[in-house]
């Protein structure tokens, strides 16, 4: 039985009632009512429009107009060798593979994890980890205001789940690999990830969205991370969707006292991409590092929406987003920093740099500081420009060819956004993706 979602004829609500009957966890009252509440909210909110302040620069009409199917299965079309291009050089990794949004055991691999650490897919966790889920799932990502989060919450059924007990260091990275396959009609997935680290923990998690086909689909992702006291979580989002895909990702991080989040986003694929990053520094003395790199070409649209919420004193946040825009592509960086009344001694810094490689590419960058405390340090800076001619001449005057000089400058620019990644295998993987991007661009220029 296939389920079609569309704004026409109330298709989302109808689709939901079909979905509800077949999905896992519907026997659990709390989950059932959560989903119902969410579809109701989605129905009330509708898709955002350009009139919505938070969506001023990004028109989601192409999504609203489409009708999407929730695919039953796609496992059989994917083999282990299809995964190779999306894997890191490091063999020591726990890797959960999702095909069209559904966990695929046969393609996944597990390496040994410390005692008490749980890494499994959400559909299974719904059955086996009810208590943890009940306390955490949808407690942070707000579906009352955010339509895409409401949509995800209504239709969530699978994704990655991690639980790390007190005082545990997970040395090996955990990789959630989401792959879309070919389908006759546009499809939708609503990956839902939940990561819970108790106090004094460390782990690195990579979310990776990609495709082995060239079709239209929507990945509507919501990830919640709960970081316990004094814990450090590294989070990586690698967005490498198909050229025609839509990807809306929402990362919501809840930080306890003295905790540390290191968030890295690398956006390269997709036609319409929105990357929401929303950490709440809820306990005293937290650190947030929020870095990203977006590289767009052709008619791609990449929107980064940051909402860094300082809710306690003595917290530091550092945002650095670099963008390279080519072709007729368009980028957005909307950087909100909210400092609540109690959050004295906040130290927040935001930097957004953009390199425009063509006359027809465009970037909108908008800082938005909302400060309700008086003893805080908030700085922001944005730059938009072409490659610095002075730097280019300087390198050339040392004997380096023009092409190589441009390459060096652009590489330095992208590297700035990647160098803070602490998992080397992931950093190398991302650096290779960036190199591929430049190679493709150069080939096109030569052609």
């Amino acid at each position, binding site marked *: 039985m296939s389920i079609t979602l569309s704004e026409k004829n109330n298709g989302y609500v109808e689709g939901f009632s079909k979905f509800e009957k077949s999905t896992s966890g519907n026997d659990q009252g709390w989950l059932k009512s959560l989903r119902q509440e969410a579809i109701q909210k989605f129905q009330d909110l509708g898709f955002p429009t350009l009139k919505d302040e938070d969506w001023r620069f990004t028109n989601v009409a192409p999504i609203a107009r489409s009708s999407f199917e929730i695919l039953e299965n796609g496992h059989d079309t994917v083999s282990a060798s299809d995964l190779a291009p999306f894997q890191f050089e490091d063999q020591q990794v726990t890797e959960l593979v999702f095909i069209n949004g559904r966990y695929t055991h046969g393609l996944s691999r597990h390496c040994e994890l410390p005692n008490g650490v749980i890494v499994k897919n959400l559909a299974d966790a719904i059955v086996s980890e009810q208590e943890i889920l009940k306390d955490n799932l949808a407690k942070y990502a707000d579906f009352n205001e955010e339509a895409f989060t409401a949509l995800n919450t209504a239709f969530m059924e699978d994704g990655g789940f991690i639980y790390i007990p007190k005082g545990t260091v997970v040395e090996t990275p955990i990789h959630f690999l989401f792959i879309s396959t070919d389908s006759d009609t546009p499809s939708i997935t609503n990956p839902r990830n939940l990561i819970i680290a108790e106090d004094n923990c460390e782990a690195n998690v990579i979310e990776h969205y990609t495709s082995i086909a060239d079709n239209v689909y929507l990945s509507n992702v919501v990830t919640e991370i709960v970081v316990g006291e004094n814990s450090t979580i590294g989070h990586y989002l690698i967005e490498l969707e198909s050229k025609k895909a839509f990807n809306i990702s929402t990362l919501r991080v809840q930080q306890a006292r003295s905790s540390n989040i290191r968030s890295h986003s690398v956006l390269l694929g997709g036609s319409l991409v929105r990357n929401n990053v929303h950490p709440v520094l809820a306990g005293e003395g937290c650190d947030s590092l929020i870095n990203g790199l977006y590289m767009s070409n052709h008619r791609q649209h990449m929107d980064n929406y940051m909402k860094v919420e300082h809710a306690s004193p003595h917290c530091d946040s550092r945002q650095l987003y670099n963008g390279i825009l080519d072709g007729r592509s368009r980028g957005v960086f909307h950087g909100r920093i909210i400092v609540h009344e109690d959050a004295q001694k906040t130290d927040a810094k935001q930097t957004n740099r953009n390199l425009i490689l063509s006359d027809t590419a465009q970037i909108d960058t908008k800082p938005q500081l909302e400060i309700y405390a008086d003893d805080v340090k908030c700085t922001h800076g944005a730059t938009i420009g072409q490659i*610095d*001619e*002075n*730097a280019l*001449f*300087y*390198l*050339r*005057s*040392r*004997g*380096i*060819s*023009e092409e*190589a*000089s441009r390459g*060096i*400058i652009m*590489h*330095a*620019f992208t*590297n*700035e956004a990647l160098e803070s990644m602490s998992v080397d295998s992931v950093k190398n993987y991302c650096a290779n993706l960036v190199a591929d991007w430049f190679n493709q661009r150069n080939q096109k220029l030569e052609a």
Partner: protein
Amino acid sequence: MLEIKNLHVSVEDQEILKGLNLTINAGEVHSIMGPNGSGKSTLAQVLAGRDSYEITEGEVLFEGKDLLELAPEDRACEGVFLAFQYPVEIPGVANTYLLREALNSVRKYRGEEPLKHIEFAKYAKEKMKIMNMGDNLLKRAVNEGFSGGEKKKNEIFQMQILEPKLAILDETDSGLDIDALKVVADGVNTLRNPERGFLVITHYQRLLDYIVPDFVHVLVDGKIVKSGGKELALELEDKGYGWIEEEKTAANS
């Protein structure tokens, strides 16, 4: 080695160099002095290949080749080096990376094998001794956060690495204390030999105590108005540029 003949250069329709003639033979050190805005840096940048200047007349031959026809990188590979008056900061590019890329580009141009990491490190180490430079400046991004003096030293360090045939130093001495000045001068003097030429642009005679020039030229309003030996620099330091212009006016009337 270098022949500049009747060079006219404009920026935005404003003529800056107005018929400049200068010949530098191998083994010679020439110094150019002149008031602010007289066109010294313009000359240096034009020789290095900056394309924001328009050359309206004249020619420049370097070892018999038409220098103005060459791309900046090819000039560097042919052996022309410019120490910038204002060295450029390049965030994210390590100083050593730039130097190795630069040296290997030049080597490739000459048909030589590129230096491997270890070979380059060894070579750079020797040069660092001459320049009295610490390791940390090598690892840091090119000129980023360098003090004024460090930037100038870094220019000469690059020159040491590339060992050009013709080195143009644009006010490398400005803003240096005496110790740094000596290091810079050492950096130049160790490269002085019968095959190399130098064009040293400066405002101060002080530098010329350490890098003793064979010729001193005075550039005023886009032209060389007086040339002489090293004593000319002393005279300029003493009396400024006014007397030369007076002399010129007197001669013209």
